[in-house]
């Protein structure tokens, strides 16, 4: 009897497994297409992925590509590839092969966007209005994506459908469109976006709107127009040129400028946007307003057209505070101080007493600002009581963008000093020494210990080499010194850029309709007024470009401005960027500061070859495309 029971138990165990098929399992982290596209809410999480991949050249964009906040970029930001800033440790320009290369991820994003654009019309559970809006949003994303490709590679294959895989790969190859066709396509996509995007959003207010699409159109058209006008400044040759895959006929320039003018004017005339705090009472107030806008764009909603947000420190934040605080406020970050604004950048700001022109920092009685050979004992240097008095009259935005020597940042006086002149006249510059004078110890770098200063010593590349540190976008509050802990939001489009686009397009094309010349001059001066200037200046190309350079500094526009206007190869032609070295002059008592204009130490001469204006197209062996010139 007992054994019978056991036999039954035995058989039960054996058969128990048969009840459930252990092989019929489904993955727990995958979703069906219907779940995603069945509703606007589901589509929203797919859009989050698309927006996340969007080539927004923000805090997380750099040498290693987009969304690299959690990578060791060495603090090599787009600005350090230009004349805006040097990196405290690395000195090089990107090469053509790696020139902000973005090909494969670009076409991956296009595939993802095409999937959205193809799928939405087939969905039956969504209203036509919802569909139309989503399709316009898809066109915006595609315009943005092709814009990023066009400005890197020139004419590219325009793929507007999801290609189905077939082993016959020949049928999958799509040739390059001409550069003109590509720009026209991007502009047409902008129009398709404008068509059904809402003018504003109450929720999800960081998704595209009609005005964001206009702003993109303004930027795209200005880029295309500049290329057409200036392409011949750095002419290239080869099959890509002869087939117009790169290069736009100069006759197209005015058409593109006009598109830019019209799109910009639409925003200026019809949108609710305006400059943030346009009439400060003093330069100090102007500086505070300007800083506030970048420290928290959400406080400046009147100006900000499109924000890319950062949140969740440690996962979806960026790393600007990690890399760019001066050494003294690194708060434990091992690699601070990487962004060093250059002297030529600082020079470009106007002074209030001399409006309408750049105002280089004069350091010697002879007023010579082109001698970069370092300290010269035979010269008469101007002496100053503080390390920052020399900048006193300069544009408020300089004070809001750059940490000047001896100024306060996060509760500390930032010491940037490159040396001293001993009472006997011996100069000790960019070497670590100390000296006793009248019972007081002086240090070449301004303090005894590396924790007490932020400049010039070769210390892990953490000290500025240019004499300037950087603060635009940095948080005034404590930020944990780790990668991805910064949550300052990024302004991708703001009203001031639209004004500057408009002014540049008007002055470049000498456009006169709709009172354009006066409106443009007004636009230019309204931005200057917001910066504390009181004297209006004329609408000239030089004035517009200088204003653009200083107003949009470090907003990652400079790189492409130099590209589209074909100025890069002129700016960087065996060029060493420049530094301003504050030096304590101990020959006088009390000691005073003198300043030495010189080449940045340990910086190699940099050259931008003209073929770098177009990046190398990867994988031409497989995609069958014609390579860009001189690769």
């Amino acid at each position, binding site marked *: 009897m007992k054994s019978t029971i056991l036999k039954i138990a035995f058989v039960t165990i*054996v058969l128990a497994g048969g009840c459930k098929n252990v092989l019929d399992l489904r*993955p727990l*982290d995958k979703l069906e297409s219907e779940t995603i596209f069945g509703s606007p809410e589901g589509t929203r999480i797919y859009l*989050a*992925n698309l927006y996340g991949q969007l080539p927004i050249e923000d805090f997380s964009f750099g040498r290693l590509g987009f969304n690299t906040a959690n990578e060791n970029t060495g603090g090599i930001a787009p600005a350090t590839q230009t004349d805006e800033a040097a990196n405290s440790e690395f000195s090089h320009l990107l090469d053509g092969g790696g020139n902000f290369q973005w090909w494969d991820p670009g076409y991956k994003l296009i595939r993802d966007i095409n999937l959205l654009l193809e799928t939405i019309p087939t969905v039956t559970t969504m209203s036509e209005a919802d569909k139309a809006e989503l399709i316009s949003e898809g066109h915006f994303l595609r315009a943005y994506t092709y814009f990023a490709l066009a400005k890197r590679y020139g004419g590219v294959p325009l793929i507007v459908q999801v290609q189905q895989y077939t082993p016959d790969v020949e049928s999958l190859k799509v040739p390059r469109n001409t550069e003109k066709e590509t720009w026209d396509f991007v502009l047409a996509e902008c129009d398709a976006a404008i068509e059904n995007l809402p003018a504003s959003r109450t*929720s999800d207010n960081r998704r595209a709107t009609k005005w964001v699409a206009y702003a993109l159109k303004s930027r795209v058209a200005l880029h295309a127009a500049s290329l057409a006008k200036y392409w011949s400044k750095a002419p290239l040759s080869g099959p890509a040129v002869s087939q117009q895959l790169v290069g736009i006929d100069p006759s197209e320039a005015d058409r593109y400028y006009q598109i830019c003018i019209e799109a910009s004017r639409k925003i200026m005339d019809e949108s609710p946007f305006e400059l943030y705090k346009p009439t400060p009472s003093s330069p100090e107030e102007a500086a505070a307003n300007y800083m506030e806008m970048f420290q928290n764009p959400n406080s400046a909603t009147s100006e900000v057209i499109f924000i*890319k947000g950062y949140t969740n420190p440690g996962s979806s934040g960026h790393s600007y505070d990690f890399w760019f605080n001066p050494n003294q406020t690194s708060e*434990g970050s091992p690699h601070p101080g990487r962004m060093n604004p250059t002297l030529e950048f600082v020079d470009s700001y106007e002074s209030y007493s001399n409006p309408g022109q750049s105002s280089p920092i004069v350091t010697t009685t002879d007023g010579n600002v082109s001698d970069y050979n370092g300290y010269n004992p035979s010269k008469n240097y101007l002496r100053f009581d503080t390390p920052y008095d020399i900048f006193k009259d300069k544009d408020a935005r300089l004070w809001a963008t750059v940490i000047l020597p001896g100024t306060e940042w996060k509760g500390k006086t930032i010491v940037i000093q490159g040396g001293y002149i001993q009472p006997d006249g011996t100069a000790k510059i960019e070497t670590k020494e100390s000296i006793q004078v009248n019972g007081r110890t002086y240090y070449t770098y301004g303090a005894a210990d590396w924790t007490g200063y932020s400049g010039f010593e070769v210390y892990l590349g953490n000290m500025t080499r240019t004499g300037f540190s950087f603060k635009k976008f940095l948080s005034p509050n404590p930020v944990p010194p780790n990668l991805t802990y910064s949550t300052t939001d990024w302004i991708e489009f703001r009203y001031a850029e639209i004004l500057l686009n408009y002014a540049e397009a008007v002055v470049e094309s000498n456009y006169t309709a709709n009172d354009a010349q006066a409106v443009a001059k007004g636009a230019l001066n309204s931005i200057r007024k917001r910066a504390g200037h009181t004297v209006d200046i004329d609408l000239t190309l030089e004035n517009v470009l200088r204003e653009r350079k200083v107003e949009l500094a470090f907003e990652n526009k400079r790189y492409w401005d130099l590209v589209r206007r074909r100025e890069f190869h002129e700016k960087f032609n065996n060029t060493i960027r420049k530094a301003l070295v504050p030096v304590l002059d101990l020959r006088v008592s009390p000691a005073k500061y003198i300043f030495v204009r010189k080449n940045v130490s340990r910086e190699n001469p940099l050259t931008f070859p003209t073929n770098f204006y177009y990046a190398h197209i990867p994988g031409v*062996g497989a995609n069958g495309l014609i390579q860009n010139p001189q690769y």
Partner: protein
Amino acid sequence: MPTKMNNAMKLFARQIAKGILACTAFTVFWGQALAVHLGEITDQEQVTVTGTVRSESEPLAGVSVSSTSDSGSGVSTDSEGTYRIAVSDNDTLVFSFVGYAQQRVPVNGRGRIDVVLVPRDQQLDEIVVVGYGTQKKANLTGAISTIQADQIQTTTHSSLAQKLQGKVPGLQIRQNTGGPGDFDAMINIRGFGSPLYVIDGIVRDGGNEFQRLNPDDIESISVLKDASAAVYGVNAANGVIIVTTKKGSQGKTQFQYNVVVGVQSPTDMPEIANAAQWMEMRNDAAVNAGLAPYISKEELEKYQQGMPGYESTNWYDETMKPWAGQQQHTLSAQGGSEKVRYFSSFGFLNDNGLLKSDAINYDRYTFRTNLTADLTNNLSATVELAGRYDRKDGAGYSIFDIIRGTISALPTNKPYLNGNPDYPTHITDGQSSNPVAISDPDISGYTQDVNKQFQSAVTLTYKVPFVDGLQLKGVASYDGNNYLNKSLTKSYKLYSYDAAADVYNAATLRHPTVLGNGYSDMNRISLQAQAIYNTLLSDRHNIGATLVYEERNGWTRSSGLSREFQFFTNDQIDMGDQNNQRTSGMESQWGNRSVIGRFTYDYLGKYLMEIAARYDGSYRYHPDRRWGLFPVVSAGWRVSEESFFKDGVPFVSNLKLRGSYGLVGQDAGNPFQYVPGFSTSGGGGYEFSNGSYVSGVAAPGIVNERLTWFQSRIADIGVDLGLFDGRLNMEFDMYQRDRTGLLAIRNVSLPNTFGGTLPEENLNSDRVRGLEFAFGFSRAIGEFRFDIGGNFNFARTMNVYVERGPFVNSMDRWRNGQANRWSDVVWMYDKIGQFQSEEELLNSPIQNGELGNSREMIGDFKYRDANGDGVIDGNDTLPLAWGGNPKMFYGLTFSANWRGFDFNMLWQGSGKYSVRFTHAYAEMFWGDGNLPAYFYDRWHLADPYDPNSEWIPGEWPAIRRISDIGAMYNESSVWRRDASYLRLKSLELGYSLPVGYIKRIGLEGVRVYANGYNLLTITDPFVKAFDPEQIEGALNTGWVYPLSRSYNFGINLTF
């Protein structure tokens, strides 16, 4: 033997008078064991038994003879091998002797019992555990090695892998790192890759779990090295390791307490420059770069004399202890009645780390109970329960960071400012942190990993009546593992001292403090139904058949959570800040279902044949393509059983030719690759409104529905040879494994505008070829008996097909081709010497690109211009070295015993591989930190303060900083060193106290022993300091926990 067996049979038959014996008497042991059961029923009478114990050739002295009912009454044989013992007439005698198989002989009223003991490793009758069953060793046709408990235990180490290293032919083991609780040894059968692990018939977890088994619980380990693994189907392509744990046998309860305690220290550590050496070399670096000396002559002299304030800090000594302790204890009991037999054990192991802060530690508790009960005449049940709790503690920084600090921190710095322990120094030399501070849990936090593992199995075995030789078996097993992780990453302060102001400036590091908890819960169920049939037809045809249905499935849930502390209070999640909390979690599940069949046949034990197959289904693949058949066929011919051979070659006691060929599988890639779903992982996210981050879903990629397992075809041919009555045994195997279907992405030149990438497909193939040799020799001379055993394995892998685009030219093919070439080959520059003069420098090929030879100096390495174009660049590299995986493994064991003494020595070695260090161990002033002392033997100026003084030659080039270096660090034989080694892995000397003494204190056996581990290493002197077995670790830095040498003392008590 046959006589005794017949006696047992007669007794059995007379007392029970039933003829049900045949089905139970598979082996001598079984027959005897049953006889014992029956014997117990009869009345008991005292008898005196005498007899002689012999090996095959001579009498054995010192053999322990005891009875199962009264283990305290044991005696030993004298020099003639004779013994005399008083026992009850139904008792069973146990004959044990080191190196020989224990024998149990029922007395059955006899007065004289003579016994022939068989050396353990020569027993052709030995029963070997194979997949889903056992086989007599003589009848094996596959390449299967086994190792028994006592052979495992001759090495003392916390990891089971290290106890096996060098002992099993074809089982390749490399220790990798030495951290307590790391268990990251490489275990690899014949160069195939990580094997499958089977414990007591159930497929269980991988190498890491295997290494944590309590060795005292293990009866034997079998290694399936060829296609005999095919009975395990998918995932057996790399071979199978089968562990069998101890079971109880009938008799009085026998307790065993094993304890071993020891100390361990690193086998070696590279010496780092002291302050004076560092300053001298730093001076060199400045002078060699054309600058003024780094410090003045007066200052340098102060360092050289070690004046107050100029002492040298040895950061390793500041951070680490010279030795750490380890101990292992196991208490077990085994025994049983007629119906129920049991083995039960409890074990504890502690392995202490070398950090002075004691932050590193490993504790392990294990238990096991194996119970066998005869429920009815035909039905028996086995219940196996085992559990483990182990806990590994670590510092708040990885050992990588800590070791880096001990190497790279400057000897001129001190752990604490002005010797004040309140102010640990903030240093960043060599991009390292103060190793004393970061290894201190009070300063920088800690990590803790706890596993709670439970394994169970219930087996019912039913001998079908009326069908002789048929058994049915059902097995149900549940295993669970709970993993708990806790890590406290503390924010802390380090200081610098401003002497002028007498102020300590604090730098805050790693702010904020983060406390994390991680959990994962793993479950696994295995069910088996087996039918086993064995029969002998016409006294000649031995037939066996096995049919198994098996089903396995499992599920895992894991989650993690963390919080930050702006101000750290307590290491409890609830005490953390509310903002910025983080959580994660995921589940996964899997399942397999299989049918296994095996048919064995032999004719008179001479001609052997086996056919087996597994039909295996896996959840991982597309339903239409998830089932695979994995067959194996093997055959053997025992030539020595042929009469012509027996007569013709009498000194050959065993000659067997065998061969096997079969197909095995190996899972490829991630599961569910056939499902084209949108994925929540891998998609970017976006903040659609302020503070509201939306996680995106990623679009499906192109899916390969046809993805399937790798297929391995394994062929093996072998010869087993026994000479001189089995005193010398040899085994020789040659094998080849061809794998096809390795994953690669098809090179169809998909245009990169397509926007998607092709999925992985089963495209590539490779081949492993190897040979293996093992021998054993044993001899007894009087009371002295010794065994010598050795094994050797050499295996290489060749890439056969590698998917790739066409070669651009023949240089491309030569330089980048992989197909039909050995893998793991390193291309490097051929160092042909050192520059001896400025003139030689100027006239040599350019080896530093655009810089020419401008940065090269006398004493720098000179490379061969292989293509003769006057420029030394990538085109001049040659395939000059094997990479980091040893291709050759060997081991040599010598063991001996004399009277109560036993001695065991194991030499082990590996060959055909290289090691290469980078960063601080192989660069001067890496990151401006300290450098190894070996660089001190360098080319340098006789007087650095006199640029015109003469050059003193040295082994190493002139010292320079990285910015002034030419091509010195190019990959060459300077830096990539052959790491082949031979080492005295373990040495053990034991003494078993005479039975007579210990009986009086109520013990049955006492053995004391001392042993050492990693005692001596013969290898390249450069490599030796790093330990050749140790891996280079992340970034090839060598910043890993050092391997250790240990000295241990142990006692085995039986009572």
